[in-house]
């Protein structure tokens, strides 16, 4: 505090004398070791990601792989345990759109054929993970493998259709608060990354549809990529 006062007085006195400070370094302040950073004790970063459902032979009739998508964003916290191991938590929102294939036989969510149709689920999700880093490094994220589990609340459940009417106009319909979709989801995740660029894979262990509706399951595996948002 005394030092801050000193510097303030100094700056004041300098301004009175109209002398320009060209270079100024406070070594004491500079040498305080930080605890927040990519490879320091605590690190928080934002992320934005895009994934695609994969590998579901039974359900491929109902969705369009490569067109369906999972958009995500959120914040991730990492606690460094050693240079090679860390634990972390993250929270974010995933919006997964399953675009349904319009060909017979069709049962999800009903038998009606539309021009376009999708089920969109938005999930407020949290996850816990452990991180294994490879290689020595300084204050950098480096190369890593994450293994973890996630769970979330499906706070928005929509069914959307688009059809052309007799006048050639597009008619869009949206049904929300779908009763046949589970309120919660959970699963396993893994990420492999280098610096801010990450390949992600998550496998949903929970079902999307309530078992009482007897609907075939939608793809469980989503593979995608993420970009870390940090300096």
């Amino acid at each position, binding site marked *: 505090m*005394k*030092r801050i*006062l*000193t*510097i303030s*007085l*100094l700056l004041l*006195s*300098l301004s009175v*004398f*109209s*002398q*320009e*400070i*060209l*270079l*100024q*370094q*406070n*070594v*004491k302040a*500079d*040498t305080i*070791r930080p605890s927040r950073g990519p*490879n320091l004790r605590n690190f928080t970063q934002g992320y934005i990601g895009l994934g695609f459902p*994969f*590998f*579901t*032979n*039974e359900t491929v009739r109902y969705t369009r792989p490569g067109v369906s998508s999972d958009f995500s964003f959120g914040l991730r916290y990492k606690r460094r345990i050693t240079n090679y191991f860390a634990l972390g938590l993250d929270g974010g929102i995933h919006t997964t759109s399953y675009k349904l294939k319009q060909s017979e036989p069709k049962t999800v969510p009903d038998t009606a054929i539309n021009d376009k149709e999708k089920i969109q689920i938005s999930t407020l999700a949290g996850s816990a993970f452990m991180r*294994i880093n*490879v*290689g*020595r*490094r*300084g*204050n*950098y994220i480096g*190369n890593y*493998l994450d*293994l973890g589990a996630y769970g979330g609340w499906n706070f928005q459940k929509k069914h959307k259709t688009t059809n052309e009417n007799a006048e050639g106009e597009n008619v869009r319909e949206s049904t929300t608060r779908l009763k046949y979709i589970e309120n919660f989801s959970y699963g*396993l995740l*893994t990420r*492999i990354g280098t610096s801010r660029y990450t390949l992600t*894979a998550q*496998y949903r*262990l929970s*079902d999307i549809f309530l078992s009482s509706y007897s609907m075939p*399951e939608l793809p*469980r*595996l989503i593979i995608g990529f993420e970009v870390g948002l940090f*300096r």
Partner: protein
Amino acid sequence: MLKSKPLLLLSGFLFLLPFLSQAQQQWMVYLKDKQHKNFNPYSYFDKKAIERRVNAGLPLDDPSDWPVKETYINEISLMANDVIITSRWLNALAVEADDLQINTIRQLPYVLAVEWIKPSQMQAAGYEDYDTSVSGNEAQILAGQLKTLGIDDWQKAGIDGKGLRIAILDVGFDRADHVPAFDQIRSEKRLIATRDFTTRGNNENVFYGNGHGTEVWSCIAGKIGDIQIGLATGAEFLLAKTEKSSEKFSEELYWLAAAEWADKNGADIINSSLGYTGKRYFNWQMDGKTSFVTRAANIAAGKGILVVNAAGNEGSDPWHYIGAPADADSVLSIGGIDPETGYHTGFSSYGPTTDKRMKPNVSAYGHVIAAAPAGLTSTQGTSFASPLVAGFAACAWQTNRSLTNMQLFKEIEVSGSLYPYFDYAHGFGIPQAGHFLNKNQTPIPQTFKIIENGDSVTIVVNKYLIGKTAASENPGSQSMKRNEDEPGSSQEYLYYNIMNKSGVLDSYYVLDVTQSEVLTLFKSDFLHGETLNVHFAGYSISVKL
């Protein structure tokens, strides 16, 4: 509920990843003992290496120079996939091996320790008929980069680094075998040896890849007709390529191997415009003993070689501090000066080291004109300040070959334009030729005074020096100057710092001086025992606060 096939795939993905990451690794294998047998310093060392050792009072038969036992090398090379280098200094082998292989090597009775190493990043600062044209501003920089280091005095004394052998460790010397800046060196056969440490075998071609080394070399000894770029145009050279951008940590190993090669081949000075920072280390590990390359640089200095290294270009980055090996206590670390302002250039890395030693040691222009593969070019980085000082060091050593490397180190510091004042941006300032050439220099008249009045301390400068050319008003003054109309003639700045009882600076400043009363400080604002050090126009005063 689970669908077995996708889960199986995911599981496979999960379990495969750790194994994928455990392929070949690089390891340093330290050995317990060495062999003296067959070591003859007179056949191993170049005669200049022997001269240097004798001059420095170092033993010719030093265990650290004994060869690594051949039986060990042979055995380990059979167990590992590859032996990257062998180091006499560390009595160690750098090998490429997987976990199984290294565990077997670790069990050998003569293995002292095994250290896992991984790639790091080289931070090299900034760079087709040969173009020697320069703009007006560039011509000023070109003149200033050597004028500030006393080229006129060196030329007048006929000093050009003759008899000194300088090794340059760099990322590549693209087309330096054709660049006209080195015509004289080539024609006089003063390029003694070259070696590419980044490839297997004894590859002598270093004239490819990156032109950074070409530019660095020119800042030591480049000359095209009347255009002189570096000071040591009469020196001999060893060129070592130790960097390639794809492999990271191996570059520190190559640095070590090149330093040993330079020692063997009689180098007096090593210039290394390279630095290792955040990709591998934390900035608080810049303590002069942690990083691999720093340890290697200190050993090189222990062999009597003056190691000159760029401070680094992280002054404006979060890293902020010097890199390795500039943190080594025996390495002359060089900061960068902005020719436009005459003081620290923003990108030049700051000191001190983590253990509070002053770095950089001295400074030189960080913005230079250098000989690139295709022509003269304007470039910047402490990568170029370092070779300017390496050339200076060669000239200084030529004036007194009885100096040891560390005595020369100290003398270069003492010659600094700010000496005895220092800070962690400039070190002792720009080395001055006059210190080595004119031992009977006229004492510099007092340029300012410090008036103590009760609790206050006021710095008052001589009015006639405000806004005037100090060098013309005060011949013989050693000062850092701003490059305005002509390099070397400009307005003076006031430098001051607050030093604690341990001799470590708490803070430091550079002020532009536009009036006589520059600054008033109050003693009560400082801790008992702290010292105010002030430098202005070649004159320094210290006051206890």
